[in-house]
């Protein structure tokens, strides 16, 4: 094969998934249409906001529909990197861009007027969504999914079964979007699902603990926990314990850092939210009423 063609092959899907392809195309199309529709507004979208959204979508797509997908099926640490992007980095970027307004503006107006979802479909979806976004369920699901798919016997079946492998990656991305939206979206944008900023800080701090413990357990474990990579073959020669330790570190450190990013974002919301008056009234947090010192 000529060099250019053989390099391009790394950008092509290992296993083409129409669902992932069309979901990403739909998201980007709606977003770009929305950008065009909103381009003359006073409170426009801004370059960095659009860039963040598109980067989040592009990274998630790259994890699932390029050669990275093959590598993550055959190297534990790349699998952990893939899930770090799918469950943490990608969704955080997408949610930080607050894309709801742009995506809504991207729906063709005729279509938007004609679509009426009947109550018997809408109601169960709302109930299910309400359940997933419950302040106890959402963090349990967020951490629980990491533990579930990393249980060695379950990890094994996910890595040898194409359907379970797809389910695993979809569940991580979908849960990442739900969780980080609940944590990071401004309260006004969340409607009935909104939970207070204080609660969010507690949740963000608590979810780091089991992730740290699991990451440390994997990193420091002296025998191979996940035998599927030896059984099905690794992408290249690496000692199984090196692979496991790298994967453990990726589960351990960046996960905690993402919570820190989350906490900073929530603190930012607290300072700028006109309704979050509780903290201000207790004094000290509002820069506008800071007493001048040392003048």
């Amino acid at each position, binding site marked *: 094969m000529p060099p250019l063609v053989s390099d391009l092959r790394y950008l092509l899907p290992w296993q083409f998934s129409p669902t992932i392809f069309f979901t990403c195309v739909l998201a980007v199309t709606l977003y770009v249409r929305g950008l065009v529709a909103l381009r003359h507004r006073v409170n426009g979208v801004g370059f960095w906001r659009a860039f963040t959204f598109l980067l989040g979508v592009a990274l998630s797509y790259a994890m699932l529909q390029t050669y990275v997908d093959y590598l993550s099926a055959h190297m534990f640490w790349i699998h952990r990197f893939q899930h770090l992007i799918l469950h943490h980095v990608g969704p955080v970027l997408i949610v930080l861009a607050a894309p709801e307004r742009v995506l809504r503006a991207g729906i063709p107006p005729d279509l938007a007027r004609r679509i009426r979802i009947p109550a018997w479909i809408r109601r169960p979806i709302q109930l299910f969504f309400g359940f997933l976004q419950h302040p106890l369920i959402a963090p349990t699901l967020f951490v629980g999914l990491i533990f579930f798919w990393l249980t060695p*016997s379950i990890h094994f079946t996910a890595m040898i079964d194409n359907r379970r492998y797809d389910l695993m990656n979809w569940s991580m991305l979908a849960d990442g979007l739900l969780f980080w939206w609940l944590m990071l979206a401004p309260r006004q944008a969340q409607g009935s699902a909104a939970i207070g900023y204080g609660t969010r800080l507690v949740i963000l701090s608590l979810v780091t603990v089991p992730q740290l413990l699991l990451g440390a357990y994997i990193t420091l474990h002296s025998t191979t926990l996940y035998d599927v990579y030896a059984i099905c073959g690794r992408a290249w020669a690496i000692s199984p314990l090196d692979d496991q330790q790298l994967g453990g570190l990726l589960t351990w450190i960046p996960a905690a850092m993402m919570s820190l990013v989350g906490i900073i974002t929530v603190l930012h919301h607290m300072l700028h939210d006109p309704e979050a008056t509780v903290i201000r009234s207790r004094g000290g947090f509002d820069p506008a009423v800071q007493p001048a010192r040392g003048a």
Partner: protein
Amino acid sequence: MSGLICATAHRWRLAAAGALLLTAMLAGCAGSDPHYALKNITGLVSPLEFQLTDQDGQPVTAANYRHDLVLLYFGYTQCPDECPTTLTMLANALRTLGPGASRVRVLFVTVDPHRDSTAVLKRYVDNFGPQFVGLRPDEEELTELSKRYRIAYHYEKPDKDGNYEVDHSSAVFVFDADGRARLLALSDNTAQQVASDLRRLLAST
């Protein structure tokens, strides 16, 4: 006020019910068959399907091996340790199995078609017994197989004489007479374990 309390209680009940359901579903996913010594992969791995060339240069498909138990293994003839060890173990298992072994085929797919010509393959598999079949894919067929069975192989850098090793999967996939994937033999399984599980599979079909 009472409406608010009611809504909150409702939300919690919903959460609890959902959590129970989820736990039950997850618990249902994990479970293994205690009857087999090998790893049970029934329903997890794709059925047997391929179009390859056998050691006599004849095109063959999975249909040629219907009504037989098929053991599918990926390797290469210049493999220094793993392939000969595994194939010898399988040969021992077939010997232990006795007359039932005539209904078993071991398909050895080379991951090194560049060096393993059909003639080389024929000489190699004949060492292990009449049930052993050497299969040679072209590059594209090998990629398809690696996607279908989720296995990896990787060519090491050649030395100064042009010799190279190939890292590859170690599993032996066991398919029943209908071509369904049933068991996975691992490198720590013994010939006795393989033989007794094959006997059980033969009895059930």
